[in-house]
Structures are given as C-alpha cells and as structure tokens.
C-alpha cells in the first residue's frame, strides 16, 4: 500500500535540497528542514541527502549525531522536554522528569515509548527560569510543574490519542 503522505514527505526533501542548491555549507539547514518534515532523520533519507549532495554518508551521519537537536530515531507524537537548567534543577525538575518517565513507562535510557506516543528528554535551559521548573510539550509551555500536576497533564494527553483498550 502506498501512503501518499510518505511520498509527499520525500517530495518535500527533494524541494528542500533544490532550495538550498545542494551546497555543502547548507547541510545543517537542510537537515533541520528535513527533520521538520519527518520529525526525525531516517537513515535512508540521510543516505539520499548525502548521495545527491555528493558528501560522504559518514560525514552526514557525523553532523547529524554531533548536534543534540537532531534525532536519528522516530520521536513520539508528544515531545516532552523537561528543563534541567540550574534554576529548574534547584526547584525540583528531577522528580518531575522521573514522574513523567514512570507515567509513560520509559526505562533503561530509552527516550521514546514503543507506541510512539511520547518522547521524554531533558534540556539544559529553556530560558524561562522565572517559571521553574518548566516542561515543554511540543510547542506548549507548562510552568511551575510538580510530579502530581504533570501526571494529570499526561492523562489528558493520553485521552487525546488513546491506545487500544485505554
């Protein structure tokens, strides 16, 4: 079965490459735009980018793994970023982070749930220290979080995309 959406995504990558004129110096921008399309950087797409730009795939892989903004694994529907900057850390970001991981069922350093609903990561500073501890879910900011509060929020999110049997 051919899913049109997948095909269109690939078309977008080709357009991005065209727009940035296959220039080596534009590689990071190309990767950023590509990640915006796929929400991560699939291996096959990176090979495609390397081949058409005439750069070695090893180098493209190197750039993609150097910056933490790039992900080579699929991200969940909800990308949860827990700020662990100094201010947030002092005001209890760690219990919040642990509560989220427990709630969505993430163990052993995994960052994305198997059902691809949630990805959970810590970030160094979101620049909202006055609202510490801060959690960012996709583009929305949740200020002054506690383990209890985040638990309720996650329950709400789960309702938005229910798993079978939930």
């Amino acid at each position, binding site marked *: *079965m*051919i*899913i*049109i959406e*997948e*095909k269109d995504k*690939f*078309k977008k990558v*080709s357009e991005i490459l065209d727009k940035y004129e296959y220039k080596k110096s534009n590689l990071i921008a190309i990767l950023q735009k590509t990640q915006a399309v796929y929400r991560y950087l*699939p*291996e*096959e*797409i*990176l*090979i*495609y980018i*390397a*081949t*058409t730009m*005439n*750069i*070695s*795939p*090893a*180098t*493209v*892989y*190197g750039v993609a*793994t*150097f*910056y*933490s903004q790039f992900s080579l694994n699929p991200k969940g529907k909800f990308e949860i970023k827990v700020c662990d900057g100094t201010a947030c850390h002092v005001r209890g970001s760690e219990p919040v982070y642990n509560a989220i991981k427990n709630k969505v069922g993430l163990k052993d350093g995994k960052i994305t749930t198997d059902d691809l609903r949630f990805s959970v990561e810590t970030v160094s500073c979101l620049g909202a220290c006055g609202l510490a501890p801060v959690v960012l879910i996709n583009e929305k900011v949740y200020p002054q979080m506690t383990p209890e509060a985040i638990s309720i929020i996650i329950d709400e999110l789960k309702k938005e995309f229910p798993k079978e049997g939930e």
Partner: protein
Amino acid sequence: MSKKLTVDGREVSFTDERNLLEVIRKAGFDVPTLCYRSDLSIYGACRMCVVEIEGRGIQTSCTVPPEEGMKVTINTERTRRIRKVVIELLLKNHDRECTTCERSGSCDLQNLSNKLGVKQLRLGKREEFLPLDESNPSVVRDQNKCILCGACIRACKEIQGHGVLDFANRGSNTIVTPAFKKDLSQVDCIYCGQCVAHCPTAALRIKSDIDRTWKEIHNKDKVVVAQIAPAVRAAVAQKFNLDPQKTVQLIAAALRRIGFDKVFDTSFSADLTIMEEGTEFVTKFTEKKNLPLFTSCCPAWVRFAEQKYPQYLSHLSTCRSPQQMFGSVIKELLPKELGTTKENIVSVSIMPCTAKKAEAVRPEFQTNNIQDVDIVLTTQELIKMIEEAGIDFAHIEAEEFDSPFGLFSGAGVIFGASGGVAEAAVRTAYELITKKKLEKVTIKEARGINTLKEIILNIEGQEVKIAIVNTLIEAEKLIERLNKGEVYYDMVEVMACPGGCVGGAGQPQLRDCCSRSGIQDRADDLYEIDVALPIHKSHENEDIKKLYKEWLEKPNSHSAHKLLHTHYKNRKRINSEGLSFGKNSEHALMNIEICIGSCCYKNGSYKLMDKLNELIQKQNLQDKVNMTAVFCFENCSSGPNIKINGEFIEVKPENAEEIFNKYILAKVK
C-alpha cells in the same frame, strides 16, 4: 628568501615550511606527534607537539606558521608535563594489551609513552570493550584502541577522495565510524588500507593471514607456492638496510626456509600483463574504441571505478592484475608441470597491498569454489613470518627463483612504482606498433612522486597521450576533466596509493608515517633493479615466450582470455533497504522498485515516480502495489531504472503510462 628563528637557543633558517613543526624537525630537533601526518592536512588534535614560544606561551607547533625571530623552546617543565598528561589520558581509554597487540613495537602511542617516560598511570583502565569489526577482508577496526586523532578520516578523504570513516557523536562519546555505525564491509570501502597506514595505533590494522599460511605450510600434503610482488623487495630492503637486488634473492631463500615449496616473482606475471594489456591497447588504439584505456592492476581503483564510474567500466582493461594472472597460471598450469592436482596447490601471494586480500576473494577469481590465489600476505606479514621462523634475514645465503616461471624483465619490476606500468607498456607497445627496436627504454616523464604525470609519445607520426595518476582523489579530478572534454588521453594508469604500490598500505611504516620521500626512495630502488637486469622489455622474457608457445598461443587469444582476463560490474556503495512509501503489504500483487541513485535521479526518476504514483491512485491500486525507492540498481548507464517484480523494465517519464498499462494494469486487473 630564507628567514630565521631560534629553537632551544639555536638559530634555524626556514623558507616556506607549512608549520613550525616542520621547521623544528628539519633542523634536526624532534617534537613528538600522534595526529600529525606530513602528507595530510593539519588537525591539531593530540596536543603532543606543544612548544613554548616567547611572548605567546604554549602553542601546538603543528598549527603555528613559522615567523621571523620567533623564540621557541621545545622542552620546558610545562610542555613536558602537558605531553605526559596527554599520554596518560589517552592510555586511560586505550586497550592496553600491548604484549599481544599487532602494532606492539611500531605503535606511536606505545613508543611515545616509553620515550617520554610515562611510568605511572593514575587513572585506571578502560572498562567498556567494544566488539571488533572484522567484516572487511583487508582491514580490522578496533575502537578500543582508537585515540581519535582523525588520521584515518583525513587519509580516506584527502588521498582517496572517499570518506568512508568520520567522527560521530560528541564529547566523550565521540567515535570514528563508518556511516550509521555500519560494518566496514557494508559501506563503500575500497580496501586500500591508507587508513591503516596512517593509524598511529592498532585501531585500524591489517587483517592477518599469517596463521592460515602456517597451517597450510605445516600440512605435508599441500604444495605451497609463493609469488612476491615487485614493490615488496624495495620496502624489505629499506627496512633491513640491504641492497634491493640482493634482497629479492634473500626473500626467495627465506621463503624456502619458512617452508614454501615453490617461489616465484610476480614481476613475471607483470610481464604477462604487459603482453596482454599492451596488445589490448594496440587493438583499441588502432580501432579508436573505448579510449582512454584505464589500467586494471590496482584492485582499490577497480572497486572505486565499479562504485563511482560505471560509465567507464568498458574502458577498464579486461586484464587481470599480475597477482591474479599468476594465480590462474599457478592453479591451471603448474599442476601439469609438477604432476599434481589443482586442489593440492596452495597459492600465496606476498603483496605491498591490503586491497589484494579483497581482490583474491572476488568470485570472478574462483573456479568451482577454489580461489586462484588462496592467501594474500602483506609485506608486513612477510617480515613477521620471517621473524616468527627465527631467520637471520640479512645473513642467509641468497637463492634464485623457481622455474618454469622464474625469469622476469625490468619492465615487470618497475610495476611497483607509479608510472611503471605505463612505462613498461610503452616499451612493448612501441615495438608492437612500429616493429622497430626501442633503443632508449627510460621514460623520465613517467617517473617521480607527482600525483599526475603525462607522457606524449610520437609513434611513427601518431601522437599517443598517456596520463599517470596515483591517489584516487587525483583520478577523480582527471575523470572530471575527461567528462568535461577538457583533456584527451589514449591510456590512463591509475594507482590508488601515493607513489604507486611502493607506497602501499601493506608495506612497513616509514619513520615519518607515509612521507613522500621515503616512498620515492623505494621507487628509485626498483628503477635501479631495472637497470641492472639483462632485459628491459616484457616481450623479450624467454619464460613468457615459452608460456605462450606451450599454453596460451598468443596474447589476447581465446585461452589467454579465459585465464588472464576478467569482467567488471557496477557495485553498490552502501547497504540500505531503500525508501518505502507506506506499508509494504505481503498481499500486494506488484512490487515496483525505482532507482533514485544519483544517475537515475538526474535522468528523471523522481518525475517517473510521481507519474507512476498518480496512475496508481487513478486506478485505485494502492493496496495492490508496493512502491520502494532504492539507491542504485547497478545499472547506471541506462537510467532511470525501475524493476517490476524484480525484472528490469526500461521506462522514461514520457512512456510511463504505456508501460504502466502493459506491465501493471494488465496484470493486476
């Protein structure tokens, strides 16, 4: 004009050296380095070459350009402490099983640790041990020994224009790896081994075949036969400080003492290569067909061409390399001479090259699962075997090679140097074309360490243009110029390693790793041997004449083609599944694969994919058809390529609908 600076209080003059480090070394001082390689770009990672410069403090001498009046001190309390701490930190992460390490004795890290007097390690041992990557026939990758100097990455990019390896991740997680942490055998490695030659430790090392060789030697039922490549003698002579001509006879003697039953010189089959390739060239040149003729002696270049330049595969000489020619002669003709069977013969070749190991296992060079060349040893492995056998190499008595393939010409010997094949070919081709004797056999333009050389000959009023390149980055540049029509050549000799086979990665490391002058010394040795030999032209070799008379009839004959020629095919650069557009259903009736590799992409495969997709939707066949985009079908000359249910179909975006109706719609409905 010469300028001056002072090193440790002594005045030193300099001109255009690329960094302070070179000035210091030229003046006879030593500064330790790990990441610095004189033939590669400057990286400044290891911090071993630190010096103190008056007014500027501690600086890495490799990254500082020399300036007039600089006052440099190499050894101060601070620089010595910095170097020792760097070594200590590197050793913390390094797998320190030195006693059993392949590079023990030739490891830069081990040597520097000894030299700098690092006696105490305060930081403990490496805790995590990563598995070895032994998937590649030539190179073993051991991340536990990597010091992240990046020399391999630079060698692959700057010498071969390739970039198989690169850094990945960041900070303490940094590693050197092929793309997507794939094995070295799953990416476009051409097995040249220049990464190994530039590695200061054993993080990249040659895959050893010593034990396999001993096993065959100890097997009393087997006839173990050796052939030695021309370039090997020059490196062994350099290593033991001996006369190169005598060295080759010492190698023959040492091999017999090790237990080899027959010992031959690959220079013989180099002569054979010239007979075949020279004849092939004369034919193509007269017909003006598929020119330039590219040489095919270098397996790294052959693989590179198969991956990157499928359009030139018809220009690649069909001649097997001298190793493989001798391989098939040994397996097919020697049993008849010796009265034994093919299965009883073990053919071992001793090469300056790591890619030869991969060449020997190519399926084209096997008959009924028996490889023509069973084992390939590098020069380094030969030296190790001589040591393991306890042979006092310099003092044994010299011996001759075995007959019936024992004679060789100077033309065969110079194969080991870049330009040697072209020069040898000209010596024979000239006489083949003109039927006149060539008096002056030396072709100066073909010699020397330059990566690009040109010969323009005038043979009876006809101009013959030959290009000689070494390093594949230079070959790539040349092919680009050929593509643009900026240059014309009748013949192109390509060798992947700097300076040709004498600079091969299987050779012992030079003092300054891969210095060009050290490689040139080896080439000069080969040219000296050529002068000393009684014959200089391949077609005057009596054993070659006899071989044709008794077995092969004449060059390029049917039997010569069967034994001495081969064919090439386009190869994938990277193992990948291809892009699937949606869920591939097992119940689909049709599988369409579309190539989106660079050639097909340029020829409109994307448009074609769009068109097919549109047609599939129009007919509502999404559930019955799977569509995948793949990188390269190895059929680049006629893109865009598609496969329908595994079968190649020629399609252009213009006739897509017609093909769709005929091959897909008709069958699905």
